[in-house]
């Protein structure tokens, strides 16, 4: 971890267009006014995917769809890039189109686009818990970093709604995040869960700011991550049997969803600095080994048998970067970095692009999460000036 932090800070310091002098950045207003690090990849993403109205369009998709997750990630990146006007546009579109005009009243629908009859609108009004948490998280952190009350309040309200509508008390797990409000409770006391919806640094952030129920959620998240990946390979989906209090491995493929498990773990090193956290990180080492052995992350991996198939798109490599770095697997890290450079994601590959923004962005020191799960950005006082006490304690 200390290596990551130091490298990140070094990169910042070395950057010729660094944010204004740390001394000029004590107030939120000054931080907002500060020139930001150029982030060409993000600028390109904005140009390629985000319409003027603040909608992230998946151009490669037949329905020109928008998913709430894309809005959520874009909100997060615009915060990292210190682009408040863009953030507001994204939020406004999300609120108006996915949340029926009011995020204080309902969860955003996960799927919007051209319907079968040619009209535009919500295609599926069910929500996606990971997107909801990312939106809530971006709002909470935007409220804190930009000093905008409304964002903080909207974030807290949304997080509370997630808690009410997208979690359940599962035998043996306690309060657990469900993938959405509907469709994940299976007859016979089973639940379908998605490990990649669990971002430890995010749950930690909510626990820090919103208290007890989130600590329970964080604890269950660790159980889900470990329980669903007995061989250290995360599956896309997992079925939990409440009576047996264990995971039933009906589907064992680990692929496009699961790749984010490693991404989030890579971003969560500060919050998982304790031995228990380190054990979780170490538990997933087989994925690093498989990647190293194959020279690239497998597109699919049989999480029970361990066999990987197919060469994953470059976004997978990018997603693994922070994690490989935190594991100290420098060879694998260099290998995957090179792979991303040589095979950059296609301009219209939304998901690949997002994974790259996360993975490379973190590696470039554009953002990080401290031990309390609070977001540090290149323009925020903490990362541009002296590291916060929490971070310093680990250096």
């Amino acid at each position, binding site marked *: 971890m200390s290596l990551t932090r130091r490298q990140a800070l070094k990169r910042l310091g070395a950057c010729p267009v660094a944010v204004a002098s740390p001394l000029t950045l004590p107030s939120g207003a000054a931080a907002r006014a500060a020139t930001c690090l150029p982030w060409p990849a993000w600028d390109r993403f904005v140009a390629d995917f985000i319409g003027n109205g603040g909608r992230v369009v998946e151009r490669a998709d037949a329905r020109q769809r928008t998913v709430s997750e894309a809005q959520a990630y874009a909100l997060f990146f615009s915060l990292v890039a210190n682009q408040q006007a863009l953030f507001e546009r994204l939020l406004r579109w999300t609120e108006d189109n996915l949340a029926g005009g009011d995020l*204080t009243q309902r969860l955003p629908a996960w799927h919007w686009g051209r319907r079968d009859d040619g009209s535009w609108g919500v295609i599926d009004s069910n929500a996606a818990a990971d997107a909801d948490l990312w939106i809530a998280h971006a709002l909470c952190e935007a409220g804190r970093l930009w000093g905008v009350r409304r964002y903080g309040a*909207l974030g807290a309200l949304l997080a*509370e709604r997630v808690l009410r509508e997208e979690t359940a008390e599962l035998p043996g797990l306690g309060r657990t995040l469900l993938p959405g409000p509907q469709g994940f409770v299976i007859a016979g006391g089973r639940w379908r869960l998605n490990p990649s919806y669990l971002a430890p640094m995010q749950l930690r952030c909510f626990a820090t700011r919103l208290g007890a129920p989130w600590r329970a959620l964080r604890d269950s998240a660790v159980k889900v991550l470990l329980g669903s990946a007995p061989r250290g390979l995360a599956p896309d989906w997992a079925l939990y049997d409440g009576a047996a209090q264990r995971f039933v491995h009906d589907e064992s493929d680990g692929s496009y969803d699961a790749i984010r498990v490693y991404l989030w773990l890579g971003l969560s090193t500060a919050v998982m600095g304790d031995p228990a956290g380190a054990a979780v990180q170490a538990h997933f080492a087989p994925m690093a080994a498989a990647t190293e052995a194959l020279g690239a992350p497998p597109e699919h991996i049989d999480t029970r048998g361990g066999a990987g198939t197919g060469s994953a798109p470059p976004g997978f490599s990018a997603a693994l970067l922070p994690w490989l770095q935190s594991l100290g697997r420098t060879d694998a890290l260099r290998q995957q970095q090179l792979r991303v450079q040589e095979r950059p994601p296609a301009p219209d590959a939304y998901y690949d692009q997002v994974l790259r923004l996360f993975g490379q962005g973190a590696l470039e020191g554009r953002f990080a999460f401290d031990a309390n799960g609070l977001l540090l950005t290149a323009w925020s006082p903490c990362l541009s000036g002296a590291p916060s006490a929490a971070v310093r304690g680990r250096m």
Partner: protein
Amino acid sequence: MKTRLAQHALLALQVLAASIVLSSAPPARAQGNVAAADPVAISELLRNAQLWLRLGRADNLRLVLNKILAVDGGQARALLLLGELELREGRSAEAQRLLARLQRGGDAAASAELQDLVRVYTRDLPRLQQLRLLRRGGNEARATGLARELFPTGNAPGALAEEFAGLLRGGGRAAAGPSLPGRTATAAPARAPVPNPPAAAAAAPAAEDRYWPLLREARALSDAGALGDARARVASAMALQPDEPEGRLLRADLDAREDRRDAAEAGYRALLDDPAAAGVHVRAAARLVVLLQNSGRHEDALADAARSGAANALDSGALRRAAEAEQAQGRSGAGLRLLEAALAALPRDPWLRHDLARLYGHLGQIETARDLLAEGRAAAPEDAEQAYAAALACAALDRDAEALATLDAVPEGARSEGQRALAQRLRDARAQAEARRSAEPVAAAAAIVRRIAERNAWRQPTDEVALFPYARRAADGRSSLRGLEMPIVVTRPEGVPDDGTDGRALAHGHRWLHVDPVRIDAGALPASFGEASEFGTVRVGGQPLPAPLPQRARGLNLGLGWTGDERRWDLGIVGAGFEVPNLVGGWRQAFSLRGQDASIELSRRVLTGGLLPYAGTRDPLSGRRWGGVTMSTATLRVAGDISGWSSSASLRAGLLEGRNVAGNDTVQLRLASDRDWLDGVALRLSAGATLSLWHYRRNLSFHTFGHGGYYSPQRYASLALPVDAQGRQGAWSYRARASVGRSWTYEANAPYHPTDPALQAATGHAVHAGGRGGGTSTSLRAEIERRLSPHWSAGASVFADRSAYYSPTQWMFYLRRNLSPQTGEMSSPRPVQPYSQF
């Protein structure tokens, strides 16, 4: 046709008035001079004023007018508009001062108009109000008649012209004639063909020469409401100089006024985007903001206000209403966005902050709400309104303690009645809550519930009527007294208009009116010399009366007053129709004295213990009137709790005077203490002791001429032991108070005629004998009240005092109508207090 004529006549007058203002300045010669040329700037400001006037934005109107007057203190139209504004807001004295300024300036037309306005808003205000009522009621015929009376020239001054244009047009035929020349003079050019724009190179100076006068005319026409004509002028002017910003601004204004909103918006935006139009940016931005808000586009208005720094143009009331409408439709998020943006633009607006805090609270974001309020308080710690708004919001968030603390931070003198009422309500709530947690729950809760029931009781609007008979048998014609009063009382609470906490107005006091007809009868003074010589100057005449002399009087007591938690006052007349009527009144202020409740009271009351002091009478021999005694007092009262005994001390100094009655003064001290021995809902029993000490300088208790007929011992001490029982049961409540006591008195001998030495000498220096006295006394008061329905209550009471020489009995039967239905806890009986007994 006539209607059209009158319309044009009116228009002509307005154009005339406006052009008087405008022509007083030399025309600006060139575009570049606009900023420097005061007259143009002033006429622009006047245009602004006109806009605010039309929008009903008195606050902004006042700002603009003050701005104009700061530049040109004699600006006639500004003085006129400001004068009208003052009148509309009820400050006629200020309007008079402005009128004087206007008259000094010598603008006869404006002076006359303001003078007319002053008349309408002062002397003729009732008629104006009646006229408006008639109109609202649709009574056009009567309204027209009244309008003709009110505006005999057929022209209403100021903004009233527009208001009553319809009426006066119908009725103001006579006025149309004289104004006719005006119409032709001003209206004709409007129909003249627009001159062709001259060839640019050759005629450029000529174009400028014509541009500004055209624009000024256009403004005057626009001010006068002739929008079509104004538009034609602007078009003519703009044909000469299409890019000149003032013209473009005026055209956009006209678009806005004629509801071509898109065109107006485009016009303003084009100006704002044009660096060459920087001179009009501020105005264009403000008008764009107003336009957007008027179109319900509050978010756009906010965005533009933020962009162009035109936050002053925002109507925060409209923003609040828009946010409330969003919330009412279940869109809290939109309300939040609107209020946040509004507060960002107007961070010192306490009510935006209040609404926003409540919305956050409503959404469960209590901490955010508190931070928000704290931020507002920190930014303006001295702002009482900010504190009030914050306290209301706190109260709405169920943070009563914080609300109280916030209010307590406001200096007493800076608090409004609304703030006091809120503080009282919060203290009530706190007391109630504390009572619930109290170690002695039953007793304490009963006490609190009772107290709050009492306070709420008098906050209600009521109509009351009562019969108040009383009798005291003593010496007929002198100290005997039988009376009947019939108090009629109308009480109306004075609420804080919509405090927003729960939709219920907080009464912080009530206004009341007493109309109490009175009849009193002291019986007939016997004709025998022995008895009659104790009356008037009969003793000096040395003869018995030819016949018994009836002593009776009829009159009316009238009073009006205001009673609040801490202050009350009243003013009235006692005994209109009596031989000696008296003006009376009182003022009382409660305050806190070293943590104890204290009050100070100044009052003047009539003594009602007998016919002579109450009503006055005539001396049968000389025919002179005497009597009607008032006591003017200053009273200091302190009350507090002394180890469980609620105790009070009051010290009173009084001056007594009456028609042809010797002057007198008194000092009185009263100490009382009692405590509850039982404290339940059905029965609360308290008992204690009361010590009274009085001193009057003179004994004027007799009925000879110069005396007042009121008890005025030189020394008086009494110790009484009162027992008080009260309670409630269902729709009944009762109260009984019995007292036994003992008194010690000394009355000095009194000359027969203390005011007139000659008369006194004529009696042979006779004196009424005084002496020591006293004895035991008992008194009983019983009251009962029943709630007949949520709207009606009835009650009765009796009071009897039995001591050696004084044994009055009083009854009271009363009926009360509660205008707002009463279903809560019964309060103690509340017999009507006749105005004579204040």
